[in-house]
């Protein structure tokens, strides 16, 4: 991560609350509740977050949820599979739009 993104910014995330503290507090409370142990374990939620971080290509999230996944006891086999899940959905989402292409082409073609 270099240039536009700075690793040292991640610990400063809470500064976003400087100009809208109530919204930040609501976000923080909700975020904390989302990742708490529930019907899904904390580890499962971290792996989902890691996969989504790759799908949305957020460098901060990738760093944060790589560390968080390791700290929940996940290993690289599991984390790599999670990234493949995200990649498969991204790839599949592109590919399935091929049907739109086929529909459009069919409409245009004789």
């Amino acid at each position: 991560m270099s240039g536009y993104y700075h690793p040292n910014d991640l610990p400063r995330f809470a500064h976003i609350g400087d100009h809208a503290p109530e919204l930040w507090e609501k976000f923080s409370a909700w975020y904390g509740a989302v990742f708490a142990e529930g019907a899904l374990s904390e580890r499962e939620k971290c792996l989902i977050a890691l996969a989504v971080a790759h799908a949305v290509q957020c460098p901060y999230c990738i760093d944060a949820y790589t560390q968080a996944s390791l700290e929940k006891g996940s290993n690289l086999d599991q984390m790599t599979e999670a990234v493949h899940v995200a990649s498969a959905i991204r790839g599949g989402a592109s590919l399935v739009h091929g049907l739109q292409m086929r529909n459009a082409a069919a409409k245009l073609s004789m």
Partner: protein
Amino acid sequence: MSLVALNHPLASTAEQLRVLNNPGRPQRPFARALEDSGLWPLAATGITVFQINVGKLCNQTCRHCHVDAGPDRREIMTRETAELCLAALAQTDIPTVDITGGAPELNPNFRYLATESKRLGRHVMDRCNLSVLLLPSQADLAEFLAAHQVEVVASLPYYQQQQTDAQRGDGVFARSIEALRKLNALGYGQPSSPLRLNLVYNPVGAFLPPAQHAIEADFKRELGRRYGVVFHSLYTITNMPISRFLEFLLRTGNYDRYMERLASAYNPAAAAGLMCRYTLSVGWDGALYDCDFNQMLDLPVGSGAPAHLRDFDPQRLHRRPITTGQHCYGCTAGAGSSCGGVTA
């Protein structure tokens, strides 16, 4: 190789303390964290664990070792000092003797210490690296431990080979599994067996351990399914930013982030349960410390308390002030960390 063998600057405890105490670092002083939690000055609450570090000799050279132990190290406890340990122990009713190293079993006085401690009616724990059980010179070690009902606390950082060997050396995982099977065959770790077998998890890198109950369940499931290995409990222990792990942190550019991680995860409840408050740590030369980490940083027991077994005085040691430093964040992060796992 050990840092000493490499003539590395961090082989010096003064250099380690210089790094840890660098005033340019952003973490609040550990003493202030204790003060903010109402725990300053930190003091012992009594002694229930008499932990004897019999020396730095080891058959492994693990990459995270806080002792900087290895086959090249020659600092080991003599018979005379072992006798001082037993004489001190006999003056007290401390229930548990925790023998560590290095590989403590390689000390010629290990079996003497274990046998005599049992004779005094104490519970004895052996902090075992597992591979030592397969050394030709230790062919009867597992049987000795079982015959004396010594609890085995064995290091195994993960249930897979890659992570274990990355931390502890090539081939260690396979040898560890073989040793665990040997212990299981003697009754160690079996559900209703009095032969206690507990495992120790250390993170294989610059991150905190997972929830102890969660990773214990993983280990039980995976070691059982893959290798037929059973054990009683698993303890998670945070890597302390000293010695070889400190060298790893600095060399890989992880030091600042790791220290920030430890400090930001400071947990007052974990601080209240710090193992130094109920442990007395004895060095290979008979010097006294609050814990094995302070021992490796040459930080002796605090002001006024007897500093050597020769001057052992349980009354003055029971309520002694504890010596702390920035490394202590390693024991207070998250659910806490001790030789017996989480503390909060």
